[in-house]
């Protein structure tokens, strides 16, 4: 039980990668990439957790309360917003691909190069 969050992170990563590899639509690919990114968030937040500790907000608890690690939370927080924007950029490129090559199927894109 003490390693369950890390195992879940590995599981989610593998499923995200599977989605990317077997994708037939570029939008599906981008969302599977999002799933793989979620694995990193789970790992980060899982590593920073302290048993029995509170959230790192001192607004209503005395300053001496043990809290979980705020550094990994800061990393994950900005990560979430920025990677959604990058996913939006990938979607814009997918739209451009539709216009240039007439298809959004990654398998067919490969064939057009030849």
């Amino acid at each position, binding site marked *: 039980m003490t390693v369950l969050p890390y195992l879940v992170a590995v599981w989610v990563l593998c499923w995200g990668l599977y989605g990317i590899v077997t994708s037939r639509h570029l939008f599906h690919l981008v969302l599977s990439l999002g799933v793989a990114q979620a694995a990193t*968030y*789970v790992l980060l937040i899982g590593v920073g957790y302290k048993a029995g500790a509170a959230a790192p907000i001192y607004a209503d608890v005395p300053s001496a309360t043990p809290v979980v690690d705020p550094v990994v939370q800061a990393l994950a927080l900005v990560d979430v917003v920025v990677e959604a924007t990058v996913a939006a950029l990938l979607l814009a490129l997918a*739209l451009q691909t539709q216009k240039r090559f007439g298809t959004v199927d990654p398998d067919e894109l490969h064939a057009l190069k030849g």
Partner: protein
Amino acid sequence: MTALQVGALVLVAVGAPVVALTRDPLRQALCFGVFGTALAILFFVFQAPDVALSQIVVSAVGLPVIVILGLVKLREEEGEGEEE
């Protein structure tokens, strides 16, 4: 580890293959929104409310909206491609 945390982890673990295996992009966008909400619950239970807020706001609302708008544009493009 509390039962709530285990439950949230199981929810996320079930959600990942659901999103990866849904082929239709429109359905997958909505599944991704639900997966994002499950992740937010997980973060909240792991004592990370800031990250949970961020995750709800972006992954459950922002990204599916972009995907759905992109799909509308894609269908327009495909429609035009067929006319030419």
